[in-house]
């Protein structure tokens, strides 16, 4: 039963990853990425990390994926299909897989193959206790908010600087040029 679910989630994650690379439209890729995120969340649950799983869904599926989609939609529409040479991509992925397998075989880490653990317990409350223990992760917990603050201000600042519509946006430039001539006529 556990193996069944592992295969399901791992398959979902891998299928999503493959589809992300394979899809011709970048929007489809972004949606395929959702499968990967959900599959990884399922794997987290199987590992007994339920808080991590819910965070994965909340932040990756709920936040980062939306951000990626908005990022795609911000860019000028590109209808040209991604006609990259598939052969090159395919051989590159084969090389990557071979390297990964080589590392797996060559690595000295022996992963536990069978879990003899009890049913995993809910992890959120223990995490909370660790976060708030003065000799635990209390200072890092507070520092996280500072890091988040820096990230918020920095990312918004960088996003804002591109707010001015570029002149090389041809339609806007054309409209503005036309507008300019019209107003010159009106002035004259």
């Amino acid at each position, binding site marked *: 039963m556990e193996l069944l679910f592992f295969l399901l989630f791992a398959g979902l994650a891998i299928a999503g990853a493959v589809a992300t690379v394979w899809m011709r439209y970048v929007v489809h890729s972004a949606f395929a990425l959702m499968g990967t995120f959900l599959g990884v969340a399922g794997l987290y649950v199987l590992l007994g990390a339920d808080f991590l799983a819910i965070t994965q869904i909340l932040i990756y599926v709920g936040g980062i994926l939306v951000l990626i989609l908005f990022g795609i*939609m911000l*860019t000028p529409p590109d209808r040209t299909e991604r006609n990259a040479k598939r052969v090159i991509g395919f051989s590159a992925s084969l090389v990557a897989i071979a390297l990964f397998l080589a590392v797996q075989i060559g690595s000295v880490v022996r992963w536990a193959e069978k879990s003899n653990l009890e*049913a995993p317990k809910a992890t959120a409350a223990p995490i*909370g206790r660790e976060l*708030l223990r003065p000799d635990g992760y*209390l200072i890092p917990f507070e520092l996280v*908010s*500072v890091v*988040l603050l820096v990230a918020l201000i920095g990312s918004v600042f960088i996003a804002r600087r591109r707010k001015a519509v570029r002149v090389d946006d041809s339609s806007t430039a054309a409209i503005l040029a036309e*507008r300019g001539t019209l107003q010159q006529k009106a002035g004259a």
Partner: protein
Amino acid sequence: MYFDYFNVFVFLTTGLLFVFANMIVGGLVRPQKPTPEKLSPYECGEDVIGDSWIRFDIRFYTTALIYLIFAVEIAFLFPWALVVREIGMLALVEGFTFVAILLLGLVYVWVKGDLDWVKTYNASVKGGTEVEDRPAADIHGGPLPVELLQAAGVGPTITEQQTKGEKGHS
């Protein structure tokens, strides 16, 4: 074993199945006589203008960025909320400090106008021409093509102001 999570899985699967089962049954049962008109996207009976892939406004991206940061904050507050009673005063102070620091970020983006939905746009770098972005023209979140609006008689006014740079919202 994983009984609690199995519940979640059952709910998830039921939800997915419900959607796709209905679509598949509907696809099998309904008559299929497609015509070009039926296959075109429906825009309230109007002929379709332009591309479905419009460029989204940067404001969506900025808002998503802000949302993402606060989603991470919420993720940290879940374990905190579970144990705050148990630990007591220290946890309460810590939690409020955490929120207060991030509140500075909210104040920052608020004051700087990143949360304003309707704002004046610095449309051109050269000359400092500003396009006023009217809410009525803002259905898709971005300024509609000016010619289109003028044709409809609701064109936004473009005011030539010699404003320097990003006055007011930078």
